């Protein structure tokens, strides 16, 4: 966990310094300048509505005497808002869990599956992967390379539609006693009705072929660079399939992923992992405290 903490801290070092110096300057005038705080939150893609809400609550709940007070109040407020339940990511190795991965094009689904596989293998899981992106050129090959890297089995069939591949994979996972099955799906824009229906179909096929001994989860992958459109992504995807958790990718840049934080708060959904690079171990389990601390400490 310590490595993760450090990784995360490093990742957010820039943000941290930013916010720290801004808060310093806020207290330079001895008066708290909420306008500065607004800027910091907006720049992190928290969105105007959410930002205003935080500031209003902060104004109401606290009277601040010093920097530490201010910091703590803000931290406490954010921490209270975020769903701390990321136990969704702690899977039961004694039964089969099926995780369907979806999101818009290029958000990092396939790469994340590669990284998740690596993560759960280290926890002792026996993992199967299904290649249900039959659309994108060479998507199958990309996933296969990850499977080879992780030494996992992959179910693929070019000639079939994605739902049939998923069905096949679930069957194999059951018969061959796997602990975990990842379903990689094609990227799709949430505005494309046909593709959303296709996703729903995959979802239905999986649901129909499992019983109460099998846990099925749906994880939405969101690019950490995305702005307020992430809200619409969440809204639309959740109209077609139930969303159990969120993963933010590409946080190794300078973006902060605030739009996903806001989604998690507004919909009471857990953020499970953060992607911080393209290598197989560039994935950290989301820890709200660490996340917020790295932002504010």
């Amino acid at each position, binding site marked *: 966990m310590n490595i993760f903490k450090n990784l995360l801290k490093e990742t957010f070092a820039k943000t941290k310094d930013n916010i720290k110096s801004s808060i310093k300057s806020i207290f330079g005038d001895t008066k708290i300048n909420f306008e500065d705080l607004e*800027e910091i939150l*907006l*720049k*992190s*893609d928290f*969105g*105007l509505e959410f930002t205003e809400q935080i500031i209003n609550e902060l104004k109401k709940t606290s009277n601040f005497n010093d920097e530490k007070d201010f910091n703590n109040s803000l931290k406490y407020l954010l921490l209270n808002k975020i769903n701390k339940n990321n136990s969704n990511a702690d899977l039961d190795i004694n039964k089969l869990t099926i995780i369907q991965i979806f999101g*818009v*094009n*290029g*958000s*990092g689904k396939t790469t994340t599956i590669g990284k998740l596989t690596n993560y759960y293998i280290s926890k002792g899981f026996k993992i199967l992967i299904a290649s249900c992106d039959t*659309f*994108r*050129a*060479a*998507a199958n*090959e*990309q996933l*296969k*390379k*990850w499977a080879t890297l992780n030494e996992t089995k992959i179910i693929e069939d070019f000639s079939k539609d994605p739902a049939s591949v998923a069905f096949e994979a679930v069957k194999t996972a059951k018969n061959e006693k796997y602990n975990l099955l990842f379903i990689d799906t094609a990227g799709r*824009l*949430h*505005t*494309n009705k046909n593709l959303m229906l296709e996703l729903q179909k995959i979802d239905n096929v999986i649901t129909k072929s499992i019983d109460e001994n099998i846990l099925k989860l749906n994880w939405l992958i969101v*690019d950490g*660079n*995305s*702005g*307020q*459109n*992430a809200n*619409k*992504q969440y809204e639309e995807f959740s109209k077609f399939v139930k969303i159990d958790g969120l993963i933010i990718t*590409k946080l*190794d*840049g*300078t*973006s*902060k992923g*605030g*739009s996903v934080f806001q989604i998690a708060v507004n919909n009471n959904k857990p953020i499970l992992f953060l992607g911080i690079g*393209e290598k197989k171990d560039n994935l950290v389990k989301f820890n709200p405290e660490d996340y917020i601390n790295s932002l504010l400490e």
Partner: protein
Amino acid sequence: MLDELTEKLEKALKKITGQGKITESNISETLREIRRVLLDADVNYKVAKDFIEKVKEKSLGQEVINSVTPGQLITKIIYDELVELLGNQSSELEVNPNGLTTIMLIGLQGSGKTTFSAKLAKYLKNKKQNVLLVAADVYRPAARSQLKILGSQINVPVFSIDESNDPVTISVESLKYAKENGLNTVIIDTAGRLHVDDEMMIEAAKIKERVKPTQTLFVVDSMTGQDAVNSAKAFHEKVDFDGVVLTKMDGDSRGGCILSIRAIVDRPVKFVSLGEKLDSLELFYPDRMASRILGKGDIVSLVEKAQAQFDEKEAEDLEKKFRENKFDLDDFLKQIKMIKKMGSLKSLLGMIPGIGSQIKNADVDDKQLIVVESIIQSMTKQERANPKILNGSRRKRIARGSGNTIQDVNRLIKQFEQMQQMMKMLNKNSGKFNLPNMKNFRIN
């Protein structure tokens, strides 16, 4: 149809309608609302702030002239400012007229470079160019295969050195290959890279230095948020590019990031990519983008209306004609054309501040406009200038010529006469009046 946003704006604008001059206090609410629109569209915080400041500066102290409300005036200033910031006109790709045209694509991971490179190849192939795609992403698993498959789908050769892990060598070799094989356009698809990854940024700069591309294009996901300014700035400083490509525009992102990028880097947007089909590529139109950023066309209709009203010369001419009772059917036709240009009659009515919400459910038939237009067009110049000469046989001819019934023609003439009557009365009552409000166009 009005959405929440327009209603909010209407409310904000109402406060300043009827006041002669734009002042700090009477536009503050409007500006706040515009700021919200921009931030929701993912325009960078700082860029939005500067933008609002500029609009404020331009608006303050402006006299609100005849026939335009202060709200319309501000909206027009906002729209014009937006279009200017977006780059006034669409800008074509530059090619090397006698020799090899090389195009290098750069951008963050997952921004859509590979798909776009295939689209661009197809686009240029359709323009009779001999195109070569170059697989210079040696990092992402299967990136090369992806490009090869796309290339085969559009019948464009793909250059790849599978055993090489050096994008610089691959790119340089591809130029030789193109020349040897009589190809005149090379598109280099590079790996996605983070702007903070120094090693990778240096690599991109190296490719650029060796290839000396005719055009380097920065490919950006239109769903990008606030951080767009940072990545664009870094790519500009460390590699530099000639133009921007905005991808995934078939979604519902408002694409405000492009405004941020334009504010940071003075480079035109060259293409808009929308959809996964390989021919869904468009040139960039700043006015359309401005509409999108402002939100779903509602405010834009308001703006267009304001702009139409701004055609002052025409307005003055018409006003003069009204006043002198010289308004004829030709002028009527002109007005109908103007309305048509602005969109559907109902939506137009809906955009007018103040009456918008009232006619939400009113039944307005756009087809009637077409009928009226066709009838007037079937009239001679003389008849248009002097409707009084329209006797029975003329009316019959016009009806036949325009494909309408004689009743349609009669109704139009009657309505026109009523309108003239109304004008006369208005003229008597007040020495001065505004252009007839669209409300006066009762077509049925």
